[in-house]
């Protein structure tokens, strides 16, 4: 059976502020059909369950080597950051326990003490870093860098290796602190 689409449903019930657009036919036959292999070239995102993680593997030690060669020039030898390049590593005791909201001190948020998902490190480094030559890292290099950054932030052991399965299994220390937006307008300031 052909599924009814959300957009069709929306048109039927007149959902949305302006309802259905009387000028819009059901379908206009526009756009180019894209084959799956072409989609795969650009569909490289990795979500929090790691379902899309590619094959490959990398160790913390390998990551340290790649980091020194391709990242340290901006983020510092130990990930300490150099303005305007952000700090990547650091778990100062005063920030532990997710103290950011109550602190006036402007505590640094790092992968170790703030980021809720390990997969975000993989996804972001692969798509956006190194800043001047993004897209040049191999998947094993990205696994290795992710391992190095997680280990330097005391999330996984220094002798660890990461692949799809082990990265999926990493739980970040403060993941459960993240809550959805509860502001709804009206009189209350939140």
């Amino acid at each position: 059976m052909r599924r009814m689409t959300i957009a069709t449903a929306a048109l039927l019930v007149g959902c949305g502020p302006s309802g259905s657009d009387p000028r819009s036919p059901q379908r206009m036959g526009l756009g180019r059909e894209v084959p799956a292999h072409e989609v795969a070239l650009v569909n490289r995102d990795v979500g929090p369950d790691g379902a899309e993680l590619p094959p490959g593997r990398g160790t913390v030690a390998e990551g340290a080597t790649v980091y020194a060669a391709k990242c340290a020039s901006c983020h510092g030898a130990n990930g300490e950051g150099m303005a305007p390049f952000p700090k990547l590593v650091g778990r100062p005791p005063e920030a532990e326990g997710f103290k950011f909201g109550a602190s006036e001190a402007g505590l640094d948020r790092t992968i170790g003490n703030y980021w809720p998902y390990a997969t975000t490190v993989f996804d972001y480094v692969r798509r956006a870093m190194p800043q001047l030559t993004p897209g040049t890292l191999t998947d094993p290099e990205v696994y290795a860098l992710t391992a190095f950054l997680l280990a330097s932030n005391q999330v996984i052991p220094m002798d660890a290796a990461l692949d799809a399965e082990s990265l999926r299994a990493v739980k970040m220390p403060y993941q459960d602190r993240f809550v959805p937006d509860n502001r709804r307008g009206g009189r209350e300031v939140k």
Partner: protein
Amino acid sequence: MPTRRDMLASTAGALGGAVVFGVPPLPRPDPQGAQAPPPVRPPLAPMPDDPTSAPGAPTSALGERSHQVSVARTPTGLIAGSSLTPHQSLTGTITPSDLHFERHHAGVPAIDAAKHELLIHGLVDRTLAFSLADLKRFPRVTRTYFIECSGNGGGAFRRPRAEMTPQQIAGLASNTEWTGVPMRALFNEVGAQRGASWVLAEGSDAAELTRSIPMSKMLDDALVVWAQNGEPLRPAQGYPIRLLLPGWEGNASIKWLRRLELGTRPWMTREETSKYTDPLKDGTARQFSFEVDAKSIITAPVFPDRITRGWHPISGVAWSGRGRIARVEVSTNGGETWSNAALLNAPTPKAFVRFEQMWEWKGDETVLLSRATDETGYVQPTRAALIEARGIGTSYHSNPIYGWKVGTDGAVTFHGET
């Protein structure tokens, strides 16, 4: 020395500091004059005493501002940088396209519009890529909406300083007439499936910037736009196409849009985890804070104006991500009494409204304030109330009441500690 977080979270403040302290203040003959450095211009022909005494300049291919008007954004020169709208130089509600704020994470990409496509895939019946020409064949809508960066005013919130201008305080918000196609029409074309609840939007810049957007917003009022104030988008605003999520934090309105993937959960990208989340005083961090709370700012008189005794229009802009602005109140006595300002245009949802109140200055020291209320009944809070609700640990999504102190000498300075 500013910390990394200060740098990132309070771009406006950091940049603004450079403008105020790095460049000597310009003489300001009238409130329309800009505070920003003057753009480079060819030498001027001498101005005749009497403009009616000789013919003027011939017609030209591109219009230019008068040489007597000097307006500019405040570029940082960084590829992951920003550049702020000079609100103190603007009137009305539309931000001229060349003064729309910029905030990029990896520079402004050069994109061949003839080759650019928007791919829609995932939970769809038909995986389709739309060219710009395809998109222009759908029924079009033209709507005016603001875009405000999630970090707008962060620096002024964290560390208010007397020498701050509206550009530094609120320059990461601009208001534009956009033209494009409703997302609903595109999702109808691809056959969006019932199970889809989140959509990943991806840009074609070097950061391949990605955000997860709830399907409900996409089916509500999301647009894919290609035009800005009657002409193609400026490159810094997403040429050839961008996502436009009316009323939502600017970062989510992905510029240079190239891909939409329909799925069942958010992707937890860096921009919705490491950045743009608000750590609160209760030890949680608020995520997906999409809707912009109601906000207003007086744009005249402001620092570094020096006013004289007599009547002055107090003028400013207000906006809300939740709908229309219902009213803007102005206080000319530091918040003791408030009165409704006149709204100079009919408020429309999720767009700037210009307010104005005439005020006679008799020479006393005072503080001018503005306070917006939107159609949900939300009232712009003081800075103290915001800190009370959230704590001091976040400066994203800040919308405190902003004040302007008028000294007995007529000098106007920023009063941020409301």
